[in-house]
């Protein structure tokens, strides 16, 4: 399987995806795993693979707006400030896919997505202000 650098691919149709992400608080409870690399597989272009560079820890991610056309995430001012997002910036939002019950039972966490500043690669797993409207385990199939 070929791994393509994100800059070389248009398949995700996401505006700007940094290759390296820094989560100052990790992805709780994995608070010590802070720096991740993003990869896209040519064989599975709808998904991103996010691998920690310090430890053997990986996540599969998806564009949550592709999962639900009605997805309207609201972020707290504190989260926006922490990532140094300016009002003109369009943040990158990615959702974690859970494949632990098998690919047929794949689910997506829409209530607690990853909010990313595409300019500096800073990210945070946030709890949406309107988290109550979305599922932690939205079925993918």
């Amino acid at each position, binding site marked *: 399987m070929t791994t393509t650098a994100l800059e070389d691919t248009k398949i995700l149709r996401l505006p700007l995806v940094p290759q390296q992400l820094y989560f100052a608080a990790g992805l709780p*409870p994995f608070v010590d795993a802070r720096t991740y690399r993003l990869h896209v597989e040519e064989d599975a272009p709808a998904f991103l*693979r996010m691998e920690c560079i310090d430890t053997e820890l990986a996540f599969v991610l998806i564009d949550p707006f592709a999962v639900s056309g009605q997805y309207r995430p609201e972020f707290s001012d504190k989260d926006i400030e922490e990532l140094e997002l300016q009002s003109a910036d369009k943040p990158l939002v990615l959702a974690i896919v859970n494949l632990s019950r098998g690919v047929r039972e794949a689910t997506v966490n829409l209530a607690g997505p990853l909010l990313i500043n595409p300019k500096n690669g800073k990210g945070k797993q946030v709890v949406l202000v309107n988290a109550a409207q979305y599922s*932690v385990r939205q079925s993918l199939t």
Partner: protein
Amino acid sequence: MLVLSRKEGETLLLGDDIEIRIVRIDGDHIRLGISAPQSVRILRGELLADIRGETVSAAIPEGAHARQLLQLLNKQTQSVSAKS
């Protein structure tokens, strides 16, 4: 932790702009009404634990395994879209 007793219809004020009202007490259920600015996130306490648990469940211990899963997932989503 501050612990207070309140009766039905009574309120609590948090800071300048958050009000919590005990709307109704019905056996072991308490209905709360909360007035707060739009920017204040209000969550059931269980949700945060649920999200953390989900992150643990979704974590893949090896990058190589993540690649295998993606291949399987891709086959699955292709077969689903082919059927629809």
